[in-house]
């Protein structure tokens, strides 16, 4: 389960205990926030419960030979609209997401299985483009696509009305618009010897440890928002979508002592930090002014009323390390192409008032930083 959710401590959940899951699945059960966590703990875990799954890590540690865990195994589905966006597409995303879930557990991604659910009507050039992108990304991440599956499903006409001539004049329809494909990738990787004993986990972290990130937050979601073309913005943002294994391997080779890693995808940095803090039963404080962010991402999120701390990333990793190792790790990260804007953004603290994550704001006050609830919805201005 990529969603890294966990059954929260009863205390922090007390407030929402009175609530019941809705009787139907609505879209915000897929947002990475609290509803999704509850769906996972109250439905999936209820039925699939076992000790490996229950750890809620990015990928599962498997004991294939009897000893310490040596393999990691994970699966994820990708749905994104539009399927092509600046510098990237759903194909690249489907490989990055899965290899990153392996990489943040300190595993070298080895093999990928891929499944396509294609909606009828998709153009072959679009599918080719996606596959080429999958192949390229897999190559650069050093993984092989070893098995797969394809299904084609019916198109519901009401979902995408066929554009009339007048409407074509008013709106521009680009490649990929209205085409839908769901890609599921499943990956297996081998844990690097340096990350085997102990394996990377929130259990390893202590008060005083530093929190690092390898660059600007919010780029992926910013890129998707702009690529949808629903807003009249001049800005262009590239998705940060990238396989992280190279960066992580560099850190391993340099013998960097890392306690845990996690990739802040859906739900953004804030949600990921909450997951880490809750799993460790500790707190984390971060400094607003230290968090790397592009001006254009800040700009569009201001306009839409989004908080970049909750915006998805696809090429970012949060690293937690001992304070005395942090500066060296930072230096090495900054030399890597995927870590130029790396920064130490905060540290592990004791929990305060039962809450895990605290933000020191730029005007010098402190407030709790909670996990995402539902969707971020653009404001109406």
């Amino acid at each position, binding site marked *: 389960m990529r969603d890294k959710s966990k059954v929260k401590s009863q205390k922090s959940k007390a*407030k*929402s205990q*009175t*609530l019941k899951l*809705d009787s*139907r*699945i*609505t*879209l*915000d059960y897929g947002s990475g*926030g*609290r*509803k999704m966590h509850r769906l996972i703990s109250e439905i999936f875990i209820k039925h699939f419960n076992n000790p490996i799954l229950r750890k809620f890590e990015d990928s599962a540690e498997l004991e294939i030979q009897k000893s310490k865990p040596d393999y990691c195994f994970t699966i994820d589905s990708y749905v994104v609209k539009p399927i092509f966006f600046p510098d990237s597409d759903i194909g690249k995303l489907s490989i990055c997401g899965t290899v990153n879930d392996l990489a943040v557990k300190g595993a070298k991604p080895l093999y990928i299985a891929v499944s396509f659910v294609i909606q009828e009507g998709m153009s072959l050039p679009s599918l080719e483009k996606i596959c080429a992108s999958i192949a390229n990304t897999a190559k650069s991440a050093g993984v092989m696509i070893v098995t797969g599956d394809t299904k084609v499903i019916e198109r519901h006409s*009401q979902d995408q*009305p066929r*554009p009339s001539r*007048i*409407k074509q*004049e*008013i*709106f521009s329809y680009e490649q990929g618009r209205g085409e839908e494909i769901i890609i599921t990738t499943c990956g297996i990787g081998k844990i690097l010897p340096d990350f085997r004993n102990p394996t990377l986990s929130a259990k390893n972290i202590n008060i005083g440890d530093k929190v690092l990130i390898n660059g600007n937050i919010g780029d992926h979601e910013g890129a998707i928002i702009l690529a*949808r073309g*629903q*807003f*009249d913005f001049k800005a262009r943002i590239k998705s940060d979508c990238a396989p992280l294994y190279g960066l992580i391997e560099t850190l391993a080779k340099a013998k960097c002592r890392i306690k845990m890693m996690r990739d802040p995808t859906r739900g953004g940095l804030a949600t990921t930090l909450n997951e880490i803090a809750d799993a460790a039963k500790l707190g984390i404080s971060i400094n607003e*002014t230290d968090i790397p962010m592009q001006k254009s991402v800040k700009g569009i999120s*201001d306009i839409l*009323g*989004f*908080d970049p701390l909750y915006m998805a990333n696809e090429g970012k990793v949060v690293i937690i390390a001992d304070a005395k190792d942090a500066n060296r790790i930072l230096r090495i990260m900054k030399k890597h192409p995927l870590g130029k804007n790396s920064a130490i953004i905060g540290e592990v603290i004791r929990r305060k008032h039962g809450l895990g994550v605290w933000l020191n*704001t*730029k*005007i*010098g*006050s*402190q*407030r*709790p930083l*909670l996990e995402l*609830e*539902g*969707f*971020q*919805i*653009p*404001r*109406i*201005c």
Partner: protein
Amino acid sequence: MIKTSAKTARILIDKINEVVKRPIKLMEVCGTHTNAISASGIRQSMPKKLQLLSGPGCPVCVTAQSDIDWVIGLARTDKAVIATFGDLMRVPGTESTLEKEKAQGANIRVVYSCLDSLKYAEDKKPAVFIGVGFETTAPTIAGTVIKAHANKIKNFYVAPFFKLIPPALRVIASNPGLKIDGFILPGHVSTIIGKRPYQFLVDQYRKPCAITGFEALDILQGIYLILKQLKDRKPEIAIQYERSVNQQGNLTAQKIIKAVFKTTHAEWRGLGVIKDSGLLFANKFARYDARAHFTIKVPKPKPTGCRCGDVLLGSIIPPQCGLFAKICTPSNPIGPCMVSSEGACAAYYKYER
């Protein structure tokens, strides 16, 4: 750069602390301000005697219960494709929400601009855009209607639930029970309407005001400008947000609003019916009025215990609502103030618990 902004903030906060000698209540009219005040931690750094109260400037929050019910009713008839801003999806109506209706198969589309809703105007089924918003949203919707008119797109309607900010401020300023000492006026709305429509706040009610931007520093500066007017007893409409707002506003936008709409009475949640505070289609465009085209039976609203109305008036802050964070959360909102990213309850829940 970053260091200087923290320093400037400190200086402004110190100055604010210096001038506040008695209990003072300021209202930030706009929901975006409420959100920024919570997110940046401004409230905690204010002197105890200074209260910042949120106002009626959250478009979804002020939309009347009966209007929400009307949309849900329309969704249930299955006679139209409903196009709406995402904000509205989770606002609880008396019996349901649009989100729940959609999950059960209702034809509802979330759009990001009114123009997008034209896409859904099919031959068989008309598209109805749900027009919520203030002076900021109205011009783009007017633009879409003009476009539809020019392109002879017939199967398109707008449900006009628009609201105008100045008439609501008059209701608040004239209510002696509320005792608001000054207004932090919205930057975006003022970019469109300029400064003049607020003049009555000074002339009739002697309320100090500042049209303010949305960065933490803007807001601190806006607050200081108001406090200074209070201290000097010289109320005026100060413009802190000079980089975007000028005296007369955006004349093109004003013109297009005038061309398409006329003012009308409108019902606000919590504030009741306010004279000339809404927009209705002018005669030339009357055929686009969804309310005139579709007859929908609206249920009688049931009391929920939600106190959004009081929140919007600045007479309570969200934690004073008995349901806040207990039963009412963003995942399970009881009122619209917990739904919208501009809603005061959502801001308090997210940032100030």
